[in-house]
């Protein structure tokens, strides 16, 4: 397999004084070019590929290059030799790249770059050599060497790209071939008003580019502005698809050699965050420790070796060691792609596709017999509108799947598309109330036509002048905004460690919005929908439920009964007080706590501390029965705090508890607190409290209720990516 092909690239930027000239209100070409370079290097750093980059500046006050001699090649500086770009380079560009006070011939600079490429790639293998020139062409050049230069570029196989502050001809042509999101902003400065040097320079650029690449050459001349739009899209995370050779079988005797490739799969961020010490920023300073402990009062620690695994079987937990599990578990007999049968495509529902990938299946490479056999299958399925249902197992370690292989015939190739289908256990048969014939919800004719008009006005597929359908919002052309944003922030923080994070870049925001043309078109129909369909946010009645309700203990019991319970407790307390309660135990923490507070054998602080320790322990279990107990504890804590006029301990505990809710996944528990209105103790209740009544009332609410979804456990380990990572 071919190793990742790497390129060598020299960025050659004009920093001469004319680059700093600009019309009022315009960004000088120097600044624009600097941004292009920054974006480019940034992209390279985060792509973490092996490409090497050099940086040559011309128009600098000083001179630093191998060719400078006898007054030739002056004011040209090799700022960085060919190497992999890193943050150092980014920092240098940020702080050291300054406008120069001289002018230098861009053709001379080109020669320096060629020399650099040739010298520094010697003995190494590069797929591509490229020079990127950023200049305003505003300098006298000597064209006499032009032919020699073009010839040596050709001979060395070096490609050229130009980035200019203005378009090549009147219009912004670099826009043409792009299919990026949205048309690029209005063109840069018009071609008018160019100096004679610039006009002459343009001619030379055209000359070079057309002789290097013939007609397409001019496609490689861009404006700064255009480049910024396109470069800012960080390079996609490149993954080489990994081949999965296997055999497709039909029955016992029909076998076709195939190769599968992951064609579509959700790409995840390559790196995860490591935890470092906040002061030293060293990861080795942070040690993570996981301890096992029993559910008893002392949380007795247990050695890891003294634990075994078990599984719940109803109310029991059945010990089932890893060794036994491995021995008894389902064993698959290795990789396979076996046809179970064929079925009509319409019987396979699109929304029942499972798994996270689509695999393209081709015949084995360079095996024409396999190609013919597979082609026969693909074409047969295609003409019958059928698909194969197959058993798919990636390898011996992985779980088998049942999936569908659909025929796919393209102009250039044919293949099968494999998608996983559900098992019986994966499906949830929920029923929902009917909508269509429900009198309450049936839309009227005028409502239906409003919806109809809205759909028509918001079609994202339009006909162009030639009558061809054009999709104006192709999701599969949008880069994943998560990566773009992450890299933007990483770059910013890397270069400016003390700055806050920057806002989302405008182009990215735009790419995620409805196209402007569609927005404009749908205004009127949307307004119509708004008037025809009354939509009203339901103001929620204050939920009267209490936690006890949720768990049903005292559903509709009148208050009288509650009072009785309290009395009973008092009575018990009196009894117990006679005995000797010395600490808050786990069996009846509320009773113990109240007794301690009453006996005054330990200080109030200590009693509270013991109680909160128990609460924390109970919450560690995250199950309803323990929640109930915790709530009883908090209630007692609050009651005793109010009666002893000490709000501080309770309030500070509650505040810290609230902070820990998201991390500990205690939202459900917090909801119960809300239902019981167990909030902070306010000034109105205890004089010493620093909390106003209003603050207390608002305390329990989180800004937004968050539904936490457990991350799906990736159980099936072996798959294409695993192997890729092992290469």
């Amino acid at each position, binding site marked *: 397999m071919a190793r990742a092909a790497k390129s060598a690239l020299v960025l050659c930027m004009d920093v001469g004084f004319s680059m700093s000239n600009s019309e009022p209100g315009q960004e000088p070409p120097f600044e624009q070019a600097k941004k292009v370079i920054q974006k480019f290097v940034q992209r390279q750093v985060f792509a973490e590929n092996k490409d090497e980059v050099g940086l040559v500046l011309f128009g600098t006050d000083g001179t630093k290059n191998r060719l400078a001699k006898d007054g030739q090649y002056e004011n040209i500086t090799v700022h960085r030799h060919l190497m992999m770009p890193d943050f150092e380079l980014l920092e240098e560009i940020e702080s050291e790249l300054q406008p120069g006070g001289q002018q230098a011939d861009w053709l001379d600079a080109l020669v320096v770059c060629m020399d650099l490429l040739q010298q520094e790639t010697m003995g190494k293998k590069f797929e591509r050599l490229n020079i990127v020139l950023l200049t305003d062409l505003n300098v006298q050049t000597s064209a006499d060497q032009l032919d020699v230069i073009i010839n040596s570029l050709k001979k060395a196989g070096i490609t050229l790209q130009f980035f200019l502050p203005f378009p090549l001809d009147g219009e912004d042509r670099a826009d043409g071939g792009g299919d990026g999101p949205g048309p690029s902003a209005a063109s840069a400065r018009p071609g008018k008003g160019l100096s004679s040097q610039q006009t002459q320079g343009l001619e030379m650029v055209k000359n070079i580019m057309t002789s290097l690449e013939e007609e397409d050459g001019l496609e490689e001349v861009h404006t700064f502005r255009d480049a910024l739009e396109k470069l800012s899209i960080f390079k996609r995370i490149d993954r080489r698809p990994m081949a999965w050779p296997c055999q497709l079988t039909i029955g016992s005797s029909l076998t076709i050699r195939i190769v599968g490739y992951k064609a579509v799969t959700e790409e995840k961020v390559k790196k995860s965050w490591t935890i470092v010490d906040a002061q030293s920023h060293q990861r080795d300073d942070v040690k993570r420790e996981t301890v096992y402990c029993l559910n008893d009062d002392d949380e007795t620690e247990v050695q890891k070796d003294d634990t075994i695994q078990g599984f719940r079987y109803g109310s029991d937990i059945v010990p089932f060691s890893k060794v036994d599990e491995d021995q008894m578990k389902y064993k698959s007999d290795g990789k396979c792609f076996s046809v179970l049968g064929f079925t009509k495509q319409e019987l396979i529902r699109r929304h029942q596709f499972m798994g996270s990938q689509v695999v393209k299946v081709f015949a084995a490479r360079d095996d024409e017999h396999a190609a013919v056999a597979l082609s026969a299958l693909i074409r047969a399925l295609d003409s019958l509108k059928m698909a194969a249902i197959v058993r798919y197992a990636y390898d011996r370690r992985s779980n088998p799947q049942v999936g569908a292989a659909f025929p796919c015939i393209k102009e250039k190739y044919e293949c099968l598309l494999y998608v996983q289908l559900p098992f019986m256990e994966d499906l949830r048969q929920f029923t*929902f109330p*009917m*909508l269509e014939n429900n009198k309450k919800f049936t839309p009227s004719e005028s409502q239906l036509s409003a919806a109809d008009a809205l759909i028509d006005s918001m079609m994202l597929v339009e006909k162009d002048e030639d009558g061809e359908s054009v999709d104006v919002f192709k999701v599969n052309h949008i880069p994943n905004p998560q990566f773009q944003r992450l890299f933007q922030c990483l770059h910013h923080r890397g270069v400016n460690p003390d700055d806050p994070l920057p806002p989302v870049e405008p182009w990215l925001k735009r790419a995620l919005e409805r196209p402007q043309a569609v927005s404009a078109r749908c205004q009127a129909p949307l307004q119509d929908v708004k008037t025809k369909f009354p939509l009203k946010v339901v103001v929620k009645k204050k939920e009267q439920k209490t936690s006890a309700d949720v768990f049903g203990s005292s559903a509709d019991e009148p208050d009288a009964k509650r009072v009785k319970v309290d009395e009973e407790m008092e009575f018990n307390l009196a009894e117990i007080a006679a005995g000797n309660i010395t600490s808050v135990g786990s069996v009846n923490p509320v009773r113990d706590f109240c007794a301690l507070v009453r006996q005054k054998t330990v200080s109030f602080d200590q009693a509270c501390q013991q109680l909160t320790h128990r609460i924390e322990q109970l919450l560690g279990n995250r199950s309803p029965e323990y929640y109930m107990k915790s709530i009883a504890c908090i209630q007692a804590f609050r009651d005793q705090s109010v009666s002893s006029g000490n709000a501080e301990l309770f309030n500070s505990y509650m505040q810290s508890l609230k902070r820990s809710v998201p991390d500990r996944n205690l939202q459900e528990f917090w909801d119960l607190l809300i239902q019981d209105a167990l909030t902070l103790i306010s000034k109105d209740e205890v004089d010493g409290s620093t909390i106003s009544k209003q603050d207390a009332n608002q305390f329990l609410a989180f800004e937004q209720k968050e539904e936490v979804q457990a991350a799906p456990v990736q159980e099936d380990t072996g798959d294409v990516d695993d192997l890729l990572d092992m290469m």
Partner: protein
Amino acid sequence: TKTMRLRRTKRILECVRSVYTSKIISSDKDLVALVFYGTEQSKNPRNSFKHVYVYHDLDSPGSQRVLDIDKLLGEKGAQFAEKTIGSGETSLGEALWCCSNLYSDIKLRLSHKRLMIFTCRDDPHGGDGAKDRQARTKAADLKETGVVIDLMHLTKPGGFDVSLFFCDIVSPPEDESELGLQIEPCRKLEDLQKRVRAKELKKRSQSRLTFSLGEGVNLAVGVYVLARTATKPSAVKLHRDTNEPVRTKTRYFHAHNGGILLPNDMKRAQVYGKKQIVMEKDEVDEIKKFDDPGLVLMGFKPMDRLKLHHHIRPALFIYPEEEQISGSSCVFTALLLKCSEKNVFALCRYIPRRNTPPRFVALVPQREELDQSQTQATPPGFNVIFLPFADDIRTLDAHVGPTASDEQVDKMKEIVHKLRFKYKSDSFENPVLQQHYRNLEALALNMLEPEPIEDLTMPKVQMMDARLGPLAQEFKDLVYPPDYNPEGKPAAKRKTAESGGGAAEKKPKAEISEEELKNHVANSTLGKLTVPVLKDACKQFGIRTTGTKKQELIDALTMQLSK
């Protein structure tokens, strides 16, 4: 006769056993009680009911209950039952009363209450009108409190006449057209006996979101999961000596001074281009925030723009939430009808939760479909199909080869035709899960070995061969030359495996010297090493690695060795 009675008892006990074992796996939090009536002995909470024997109190079932049932089965079981329970006077009313006490003794609020009466007697009180009346009254009381009473009767000679007595006891069927009442008792019992080993999930929306059609036009929808890969329930850690469950506590502490580190004492970091970039945890979350959770309509596209291969995740399902925004159902229905009529899908931006980056989804209309028995086969709503971003699509160079001739294609069509079947999405069980559940059952119920599973994912090769007959050979003759062996190549691999001579002798451990490593670091060529080698190297230098991703290992080594 006695044998007939034995057989009937056995049948019912097997049903009960099956209810238990299914419940244990499908919904282990459900409470189940087993009450015998018409017994000689009495056993109930306050012993206030004669001839009612509460064999199992209302509680979540475990293995002991299944073993208890096993004790009553067979010849020996019958003797045992005779001794402990015996048979005596029958009063269904007393039994129902006892059951109603069992329900009310439970402190938890129950969402469903169901009572199944297993019997083979259609006139249990033999014409005793007072007892019949008492039973009817008690049944009415139970139904009043939300208990659904179901009859699971066996056939009896001359037919089980429901109208004699039980029609007044059981809950009326939900659908009035079904007034005929349990005509086929056996089917019901058979259904009960069918063991379903799959976790049952309550219908609950994953989240409730605002669906914005445009400025100021918002409706509310609930997001549901209708299909998600079921996984083995997670294991619990137990103390080896006592089988007591243990909890894990994770804490962070400072490597040098040993002090416990609180969340504020730690930050997050990543390394790029040899530079460590540090952020607060809050910032890491903030980076992922683009907008508030919700669905935002971008526009509509014809259905043929939804590509088959644009699949990255299982779909979700949305249904309007009238309780959040009134009027939602009406707009939703109008959109559903119109999208379906115009054959378009809605394209939306979807942010499921706070601090979650957006994804684009296709809302595909799905109108309600009923099956023959008028029950819902597909619910009305939109399926939410996740669409890939540019990064999710991999570029691969397609294999281009010769294509098949019409004759070859036609032969394959015959093969396809012979092997066609009607695919149904619920017809395949997951063999891995099924094996796991059976293993667990075997261990819990002290069985010698687990019940065998039928692996439905395996091709029925013999049947396929028989159906194909000579077709397979004919096709091969058309596409393969005589000397071609499609199973070729892997032979070489097998040889190395055999010559290895036993599993103990694995590949020689690839150790790598520090010097070599340093060279790799200097030249940035660590990437050439394999993951196992990198892991070993990390161990060798005592580098702690949190991740196992290759890039993380490389970063860790680079950090260590370039110090």
